[in-house]
């Protein structure tokens, strides 16, 4: 008897649980359908979202530009630091081929040297072609010859020792490690990145201040709501929570729109540069700015800016509510 009724009891229990769950779900849905306590955006609220979108767009563009400049400067430095040149000037009684071979052997003997390539006569003639025209006979002119030395940028060779050994074994050979150029470029790149970072800091400060003032402006129209909630017995954390959530969502909405617009601009530039790779203007732009890609760090920065601006609007609305409530009480 007991065995027969037990499954039935379990079924009844299960049915009751399902009904209770359905009721809870229905109650939750009904609660969700209630009008939000904070009124929908008015003119000031919409202006706030627009201002946040514009300022986020400009901030993200600045951030992307700084990322681009930083990456490009780093590439310039690395590319130049990857090479050194040995130049051998012709002199009377100098066997150029032997001098070139000796110099290459000296250079190749140092650790940190990845390769040492002699620029052959044909390649040298091609280099001079823009100035001296085609059909140049190298034997007629005392043209210096070059050896391109490939360098490991991390484990750089001892240039002073190499220079001394070259002077001893190959008279007339001059080693140029491009130090002067690299130093100048490093200084230029550092100052460019510093300027970019300063502009970014100014831009972010301006964005933060604009967000704060726009949020306060939008909050000003909600004074009566805070007052009514306060007088019907709502506790300060409840009121602050309502406004915080509303303004964080509004702030994130504006910031996301601005951030997305900035990302679209970068994607368009990247697409343009990739479609102009083999053209003179494309090569010129690529030489200056790389491939216009802001990379993962740029996209993460945009996402971070959106989150920060959302948090900033939430904090501003929270502080405004608490200040307003304190003013009512006194």
């Amino acid at each position, binding site marked *: 008897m007991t065995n027969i009724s037990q499954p039935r009891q379990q079924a009844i229990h299960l049915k009751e649980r399902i009904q209770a769950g359905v009721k809870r779900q229905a109650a939750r849905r009904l609660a969700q359908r*209630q*009008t939000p306590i904070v009124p929908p955006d008015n003119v000031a609220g919409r202006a706030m979202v627009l201002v946040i979108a514009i300022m986020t767009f400009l901030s993200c563009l600045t951030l992307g530009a700084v990322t681009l400049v930083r990456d490009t400067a780093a590439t310039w430095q690395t590319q130049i630091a990857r090479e050194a040149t040995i130049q051998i000037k012709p002199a009377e009684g100098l066997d150029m081929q032997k001098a070139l071979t000796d110099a290459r052997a000296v250079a190749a003997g140092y650790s940190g040297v990845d390769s040492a390539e002699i620029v052959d006569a044909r390649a040298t003639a091609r280099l001079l072609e823009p100035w001296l025209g085609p059909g140049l006979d190298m034997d007629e002119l005392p043209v210096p010859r070059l050896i391109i030395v490939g360098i490991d940028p991390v484990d750089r060779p001892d240039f002073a020792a190499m220079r001394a050994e070259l002077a001893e074994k190959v008279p007339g050979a001059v080693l140029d490690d491009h130090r002067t150029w690299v130093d100048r470029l490093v200084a230029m790149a550092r100052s460019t990145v510093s300027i970019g970072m300063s502009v970014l800091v100014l831009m972010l400060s301006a964005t933060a201040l604009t967000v704060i003032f726009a949020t306060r402006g939008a909050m000003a129209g909600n004074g009566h709501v805070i007052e009514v*909630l306060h007088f019907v*017995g709502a506790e300060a954390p409840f009121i602050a929570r309502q406004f915080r959530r509303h303004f964080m969502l509004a702030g994130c909405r504006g910031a996301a729109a601005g951030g997305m617009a900035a990302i679209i601009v970068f994607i368009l530039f990247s697409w343009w540069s990739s479609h102009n790779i083999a053209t003179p203007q494309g090569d010129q732009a690529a030489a200056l700015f790389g491939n216009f890609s802001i990379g993962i760090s740029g996209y993460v920065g945009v996402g971070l800016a959106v989150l920060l601006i959302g948090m900033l609007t939430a904090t501003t609305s929270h502080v405004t509510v608490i200040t307003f409530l304190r003013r009512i009480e006194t």
Partner: protein
Amino acid sequence: MIRFENVGLRYGMGPEVLRDVSFHLPERSFQFLSGPSGTGKTTLLRLLFMSLKPTRGLINIFGKDRSRITREDLPLMRRRIGIVFQDFRLLDHLTTYENVALPLRVRGREETSYRGDVIELLKWVGLGDRMHVLPPVLSGGEKQRAAIARALVEQPSILLADEPTGNVDPQLARRLLRLLIELNRMGTAVVIATHDIGLMDQVDARRMVLSGGRLHIYD
């Protein structure tokens, strides 16, 4: 229930708006607070509602000294006091039903737990067919009744009404007064701030008259 002893109040460095005000509001009592405009009726109501602190004197509300009530305690204390503002202070983006249910909603109660009570209350104040209407569509009298319903939804111990008949015609004023008398019979103390002599003459109730910042009581 509420006791004032030699209470004085001034705004900033200005003159005293209220001087040596002393009275006792017993439970289930009914009284008018009267006096010419600008004599401090609203200020006295704000003191009763604890949105102002006296500059001197003692106020005892529900057995607690006002000066010892902290900011955190105020919302809980206020739930025992219903207030009807002269300008109604309804939220225009919420329906009449949502406005009336607001005190319960802010307490975090589930909507299903109070829906029936709020609808019943709306029917009692004659707004049963206007519960899904937004306040800008309501007439002055309907707004006033919605504001009264909101003040009563938590079944307060005392109802404070600031010029509840100020914006309605005499017929509706009588109807609202009957509503408040009925409420008082059900156990809620009522304080009506008004300068409408005609309204006061309709009920034999205690009159508290403010004049020159001082309070005179006529039982």
